[in-house]
């Protein structure tokens, strides 16, 4: 407790692996906000992390490197949270799968301009007090901070109709790709 982020990641953890750059970290597990470069010198205690706009939570550090798509990263988390929802209250039960499907559409190159606005509204609607428990607010933390810090990546996905991290050549966008629904029920049991 009390070491800086930089210390923890570079000294104790040995720094980023060769060839990978640092983009961000979830300091306290899946339901916390990203901390990025500019937060590297904050102290890792509850107050310090809170002051930087995140939570120390469980202290589980999840690092995002520059070869990993932030959209895919956050989609994975929202998939988890959507499954973990108990199903009691409407915003979480129906809202989390919707954010997950939006993120998947964006990742698959089928995102639309209005999707980012919808995702942002969800991070507001699924705030503390609006839902029955803190699962949904927690689920929104990585999404909210990803939209704040990695917005360019999201916009690129939508503009180029592809994931720039997985698909190196820009695709020739087919006019219909963004509106043909692709079922992916094999992922959502």
């Amino acid at each position: 407790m009390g070491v800086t982020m930089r210390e923890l990641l570079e000294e104790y953890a040995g720094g980023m692996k060769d060839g990978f750059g640092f983009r961000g970290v979830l300091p306290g597990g899946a339901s916390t906000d990203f901390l990025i470069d500019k937060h590297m010198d904050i102290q890792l205690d509850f107050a310090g992390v809170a002051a930087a706009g995140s939570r120390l939570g469980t202290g589980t550090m999840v690092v995002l490197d520059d070869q990993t798509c932030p959209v895919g990263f956050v989609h994975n988390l929202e998939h988890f949270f959507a499954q973990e929802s108990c199903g009691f209250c409407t915003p979480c039960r129906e809202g989390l799968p919707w954010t997950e499907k939006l993120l998947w559409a964006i990742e698959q190159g089928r995102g639309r301009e209005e999707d980012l606005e919808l995702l942002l509204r969800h991070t507001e609607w699924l705030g503390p007090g609006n839902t029955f428990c803190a699962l949904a607010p927690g689920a929104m933390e990585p999404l909210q901070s990803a939209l704040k810090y990695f917005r360019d990546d999201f916009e690129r996905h939508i503009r180029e109709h592809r994931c720039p991290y997985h698909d190196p050549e820009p695709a020739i966008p087919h006019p219909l790709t963004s509106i043909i629904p692709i079922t992916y029920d094999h992922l959502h049991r």
Partner: protein
Amino acid sequence: MTIYIDNKPYEVKPGANILEAVLQLGMNLPYFCWHPALGSVGACRQCAVKVFKDEDDKTGRLVMGCMEPVRDNLRLSLEDPGAKAFREQVIGWLMTNHPHDCAVCDEGGSCHLQDMTVMTGHTYRHYRFTKRTYENQNLGPFLNHEMNRCIQCYRCVRFYKDYAGGKDLNVFAAHNHVYFGRCESGRLESEFSGNLAEVCPTGVFTDKTLKSHYTRKWDMTWAPSVCQGCSLGCNTSAGERYGSLRQIANRYNGEVNGYFLCDRGRYGYEFVNSDQRILQPAFRPHSNGTVNKDHVLDQVAARLKNGRTIGIGSPRASLESNFALKLLVGEDNFYLGMSDSDHDHTSLALKILREGPARTPSLQEAGQADAVLILGEDLTNTAPMLALAVRQAVRHKPEADAMQQIHLAEWQDAAVREAVQEQHGPLFILHTVPTKLDELAEDIFRGAPEQLARLGFAVAHVLGADTDPVTGLTPEESALAEKIAAALLAAEKPLVVSGYGSGCDHMMKAAANIAWALQHKGRNPMLSLTLPEVNSLGLEMLGGHRLDTAIDVLRQGEADTVIVLENDLYRRADAHLIDELFLHAQDVILIDHLYNRTAEKATVLLPAGTFAEADGTVVNNEGRAQRYYQVYVPKGDVQESWRWCLQIAEKAQVRSCMGCTTWTISTGRFRPGCPHWHPCSSWRRMLTSGSTGNASPRTS
């Protein structure tokens, strides 16, 4: 206290939550999971409003109206754009999975989800992805199951399990795949399962019997009605279209049935549409061709003029019909169409109600009791809604105890039930056979009726009743008598229940003695007595001779013609006695709805209108007179029984009926001067209850 809604002050009663207060003020705030009988759980998040710290707070925070108690000077806003947007979005979320079924969904037109959607202004579905779907179950003959429409409000399981004590409907799985149903397809076991159709805000649970002759709610003509199934007299709304009865729905009565009905009352209406209906007047053995109504009336009138006629009434017919028959044949010749034992029980009940000091509670009041003794009754079968009331009654004492430690509003349903867990207040059931309420009882005693009655008298004696002590009790029985007496004495609102269920008069006498002893000790006891049929008490009050004397009269040749009103005599006495009745009677004229054993042997059949085709008044087990109204004009020659009686009287020029017009009967103005009507001055609670003239009542 004063609260401010959008900066305007309103006076509200303390203790309510914001949603209740707003609804009581007549304002619109959408909701799903809250229900006036089930309280609040805060699941759906639909009733979100903004509350503000003070006048200067311009942002406020969102709270759920159903979970927030009102307090003095509370400032809230319904019109706040953030709150409105959130409420609209809740509908938006529900619409992500809700199928586009409206056009083909049974619930359409009487759908709470439709109403709330319009209320929030949501019109466009922005969701473009797939919907989750479910497999449906066959839940039996009463309810249809269409889970895709579910909005997961949890009302079904909260009603079925928490309120009605059902075991076989549950919630399964999690996240957006939460499923409400049984472990596997199968008939729902609860006697109150039909209420799921009204409690469910969407078309997941719908009336399967309506489906077999479906029509939209707005195409039905409704009339206020009263259930004919038992002596409790729950209020219903009967809906018809094109001259056939389509649906029975609950009609709210804050003193009797409240929001719910039992399945017998809700689904027991199809006899009205049966092909076994008597639809034409007829002579038996059958004459060929159709019989002209005037011809039949002439024949019947001739028989009345030339012979001596007796009339047998019915505890399932209205007061008006029984009265008209009594007028027609004369007081000396009017017989109760009850079995002699039913008559004995009912007249004893009437005596107890008239002469005793203990009061008879309304059904809702019975549900407020905090200690209950059931003496010789299986309420689930004899008076189902009273069993449901007892289920609520046993919650009161543990709730009151829990509230000493934790201060919770009673509408905080989930929290209150959590605090109470499985505890029940004192309930003692003394009966010959197991009953469904046994699981709630503190003590159950099984024995022969006389044994149970003796135990009842012992309880009364312990309470100080001025009767001889009961001898020969086992130590176990004595101890139980002491325990029951102590529990009833300690209660604020003790309830004693008995009735005709065991066929033992002494049972009711013992129950009465217990209630009266409690009364003498300065308590405020309630005494509920069940009766066999919808108008048993009404018929008994009207008065008539015992059925066995009717057979004597015929046997001795003092009468030769019998008019039977809405009755199957073979259900009222041993078959050989009724055979004798038919043997000695020259003519038996039956006015009834359905072919039955009596109809097979009657010489004249006159088609009677059912409760849906006739106005009428029935008196329930409390002594509450309630009126039901004709829903549609019956086909052909079917008409109200009382109308048949008056038309016969007119043809036969019966003097006592002169001046007694059909209008007089139909508006219930029994003339005091009429020698055959004895207005009873000590009737308790002669109330006409229920609303009239509802065009299309709300059922959810």
